[in-house]
């Protein structure tokens, strides 16, 4: 049920003690994981207010990641569209090329402070795996990355990067051989090796407290946009746009603005071959509430409750669930969730590359595709900030292949 603007302003947007965002989230896991999750929750609630921990986190974001990332005025593209002024939050300029590293640094520090010498991660496009392997190398932690066998094939450069960084990459052959199966396998590893292992989840999905932890570490994105937008154009943006797979880059941008209801919020899901085809990965646009990977949230399943195989040109969005906080923001009406198809994303990928000199990740290209539609309906004195969540270097092989171009 949508809330009134006044109600939306007065919410605190924090989960309850059980990790619920309204009806969503929670801890729908086997008993074997409960102790590990409570331990993580206790450690996190303690460390998030620990000045030493925060100082180390901030220092790494500055000197290792290269924060703050710029807020860039995409002037030529804005003019070509002829509507609102479009700004890119340049997370693509972070070390490892995406927003993912904000979260992995935070979680790897949690592992270090919790005395766990081994970290595991799941990855879809490979960005989170690379980001995890990177910080594991930096902190001297053993790192194992689970990746769907199909994704290993689709994203071979990232697989090699992880190996260069000293991580072990385990291809997951079960199920649909994509992100959701990698997540299942990582959970299994964690259940078995919980004493010495920290599980670095790559998105705001999963059981509590992960959605909150991952959000908090990525919220640096939105906090920076708050002061950068004031500095650049004297006020908050009129609208925020970000792509949503699990939803971590989106919530990182949105969260600091949730109480500022004058700022419109748009999350863009992968509409694949079209929302009416069932070949997409857009649970908020056309799924329904259920339970997957430890949380109640919107998901894509068949009539019998079996999780659907999803499709997106972008491996990082190819996931049948979504972070529970997004499910909550949708239901209360604070954020709007829309879709961009493979074709629309590919079009935006080329257009932004050529007009702005920035090759976006295919995930990000979904946000750009919708930004174009949205900006065209707005006035030139209005502003849109889109999260340029990742760079497209990793995707050039996918795009070339789709266009019948051989790069080898």
């Amino acid at each position, binding site marked *: 049920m949508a809330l009134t603007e006044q109600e939306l302003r007065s919410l605190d947007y924090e989960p309850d003690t059980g990790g619920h965002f309204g009806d969503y989230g929670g801890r729908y896991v*086997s*008993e074997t994981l409960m*102790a590990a999750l409570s331990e993580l929750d206790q450690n996190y609630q303690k460390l998030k207010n620990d000045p030493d921990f925060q100082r180390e986190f901030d220092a790494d974001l500055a000197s290792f990641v290269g924060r703050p990332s710029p807020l860039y005025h995409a002037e030529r593209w804005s003019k070509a569209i002829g509507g609102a002024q479009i700004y890119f939050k340049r997370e693509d300029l972070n070390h490892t090329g995406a927003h993912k590293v904000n979260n992995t640094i935070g979680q790897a520090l949690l592992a270090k402070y919790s005395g766990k010498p081994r970290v595991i991660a799941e990855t879809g496009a490979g960005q989170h795996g690379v980001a995890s392997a990177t910080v594991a190398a930096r902190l001297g932690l053993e790192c194992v990355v689970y990746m769907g066998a199909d994704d290993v094939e689709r994203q071979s450069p990232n697989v090699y990067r992880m190996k260069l960084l000293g991580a072990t990459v385990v291809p997951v052959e*079960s199920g649909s051989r994509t992100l959701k199966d990698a997540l299942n396998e990582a*959970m299994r590893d964690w259940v078995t090796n919980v004493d010495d292992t920290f599980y670095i989840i790559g998105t705001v999905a999963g059981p509590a407290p992960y959605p909150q932890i991952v959000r908090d570490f990525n919220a640096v994105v939105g906090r920076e946009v708050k002061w950068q937008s004031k500095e650049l154009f004297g006020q908050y943006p009129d609208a925020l746009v970000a792509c949503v797979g699990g939803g971590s880059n989106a919530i990182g941008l949105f969260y600091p603005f949730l109480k500022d209801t004058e700022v419109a919020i748009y999350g863009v899901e992968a509409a694949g071959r079209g929302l009416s085809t069932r070949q997409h990965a857009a649970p908020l646009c056309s799924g329904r509430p259920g339970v997957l990977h430890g949380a109640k949230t919107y998901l894509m399943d068949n009539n*019998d*409750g*079996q999780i659907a195989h999803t499709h997106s040109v972008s491996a990082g969005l190819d996931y049948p669930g979504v972070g529970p906080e997004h499910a909550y923001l949708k239901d209360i009406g604070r954020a709007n969730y829309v879709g961009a198809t493979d074709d629309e994303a590919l079009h935006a990928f080329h257009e932004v590359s050529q007009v702005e000199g920035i090759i976006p990740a295919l995930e990000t290209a979904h946000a750009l595709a919708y930004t174009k539609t949205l900006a065209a309906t707005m006035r030139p004195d209005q502003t849109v900030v889109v999260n340029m969540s990742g760079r497209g270097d990793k995707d050039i092989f996918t795009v070339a292949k789709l266009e019948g171009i051989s790069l080898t």
Partner: protein
Amino acid sequence: MSSNRIQQRMDALSAIGRKALIPYIVAGDPTPSVTVPAMHAMVEAGADIIELGMPFSDPFADGPVNQRGAERAIAGGTTLRSVLDAVSEFRQTDQQTPVVLMGYLNPVIAMGETAFCDACEKSGVDGLLIVDMPPEEEGSLVKGARDRGLDLIYLAAPTTTDARLATIGQATSGYLYYVSLKGITGSSKLDTSEVKERIEHIRQHVSVPICVGFGIRTAEDAAAISSTADGSIVGTVLVSQVESLTNDPAKIPEALQSILKPMREAMDANA
């Protein structure tokens, strides 16, 4: 009609000093037609309670063997409705053996929790074990089950704290399913003396019978576990057997018996 079949069975076993042998198979694995004959065959081989898996596409608390079992069942057309139909069919000739459905929450949500509980009652299901629904996430399924006298069986793990044991002990009915090792179903490290110690500890917090699963593969394992626990739950080794007979499903009921009978004998020799 399903009132307390589990408790009656556990009481009866306790009266004669016998421990419960509880096999688990995935309903519809590899085809729907094998399930009911397999259930009857397992009872004949000495099973006291049957745990029937409701296949789910993403069973993250299970190991690869059980996941493949679920994948075969789903590919063979098994749905939650057909699992319930199998129980109805089983009940036509066996009104005594308790049946527990074990699985994950999402298919139940898809059917509707209340509709599911109605169907369970009608089919003759006695208990539910929803792996990804700890007591903290109680919802309409729990209410629906309690209103209809269906037992809710919860898990306890080696890592479960005493405070949580008390909560779980309050919530669980029928029996408590103690997960004997850290890890997923089908893991291989079973330390029976450690399990014994834990069970003695858990009994201080929980009044229902305690049955142990995860890692029981041989007759010796089953006998060792049931020397302290009230029952042994055997799953992966059976699903593995089913897997080896995917191309010859008619042989499955007898093959399951050949695993369960030595377990029954070893457990009874122990008693």
